[in-house]
């Protein structure tokens, strides 16, 4: 769902651009809580992975196709604020270099693909683990449910924007019916890809997954690159007396 220029009038596009810019500004500050030396490189990886998989349009019924949006998957992997930044970079690269999604419509696309999907995806993942269980099954089910619903949710928000500032004189009910119908189907693909990718990463390194870090703590401590547990930094473990200081308080 990359909105081209021309679908929405300029005031609506300006409003979504302002909302997108404001959210990105907040995300630039809040993402710091999610990004450290371990997770920052994974944000770049997640963004370029989403760019790649968005190229893989899969066929949907009736001669149409869909592709992963990726907001729900990205939020589960790197956290919601970092996900907003990752998705914005993907959409910016697509609009500027690939003419995929309009330049005037960039704010609209950030709101739909980078904000609504992250919000719905992360919200349902957290809600599922809160009310059901914090098990791996619940994490994957919540991410899948969030991914599935994030696509028709974005379609509905597009319909609302079209009602507010659509250039063409088309009944909003008609737009809503076509948009939610086809995007409900695309959501099934979104859920399948999200669960498959998230399941694979959680299986090998749950500690790297923002929405599943607690799974790594319940079992044996995860092996890290230094062979030590994640809570011990190699440069703070020795006190002046040479004793181990697992809390790092001697720093």
């Amino acid at each position: 769902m990359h909105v081209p220029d021309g679908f929405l009038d300029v005031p609506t596009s300006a409003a979504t651009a302002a909302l997108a810019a404001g959210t990105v500004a907040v995300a630039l500050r809040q993402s710091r809580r999610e990004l450290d030396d371990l997770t920052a490189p994974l944000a770049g990886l997640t963004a370029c992975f989403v760019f790649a998989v968005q190229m893989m349009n899969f066929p949907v019924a009736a001669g149409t196709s869909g592709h992963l949006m990726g907001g729900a998957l990205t939020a589960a992997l790197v956290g919601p604020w970092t996900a907003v930044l990752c998705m914005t970079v993907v959409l910016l690269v697509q609009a500027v270099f690939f003419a995929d999604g309009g330049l005037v419509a960039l704010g609209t696309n950030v709101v739909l693909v980078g904000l609504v999907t992250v919000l719905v995806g992360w919200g349902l993942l957290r809600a599922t683990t809160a009310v059901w269980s914090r098990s791996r099954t619940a994490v994957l089910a919540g991410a899948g449910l969030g991914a599935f619903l994030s696509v028709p949710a974005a379609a509905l928000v597009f319909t609302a924007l079209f009602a507010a500032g659509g250039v063409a004189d088309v009944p909003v009910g008609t737009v809503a019916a076509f948009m939610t119908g086809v995007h409900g189907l695309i959501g099934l693909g979104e859920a399948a890809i999200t669960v498959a990718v998230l399941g694979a990463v959680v299986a090998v390194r749950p500690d790297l997954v923002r929405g599943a870090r607690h799974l790594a703590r319940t079992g044996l401590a995860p092996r890290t690159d230094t062979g030590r547990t994640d809570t011990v930094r190699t440069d703070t473990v020795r006190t002046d007396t040479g004793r181990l200081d697992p809390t790092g308080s001697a720093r």
Partner: protein
Amino acid sequence: MSRRPRTRTVWLVGVAVALLVAGVASWYASGSPDGLEWAAGRAGFLGTAEDSAAAGSPLADYSVRGVDGGRLSGGLAGVAGVLVTLVLAGGLALLLRRRGDRTPRR
């Protein structure tokens, strides 16, 4: 429990998968109109779409201008997009991160 792969291994495998998907697997992507395009066509507002100001980009529409052959051109464009996205998003994340802190806080 089997040994867990190193973070660097996970990262390298992930980037390799992204490059393969964008560079090779994308040859087999469906060429049908996507959901929005289809819905716009059926609802009757597809005609209001305008060309992007970036339509003249050398990578416009996921092909490299001047490179013949849909697969080679599309694959190269995909690889370029993956690398640009990796550098921009990864660089931004590295700038924003809490340095020297490997313990994620709540």
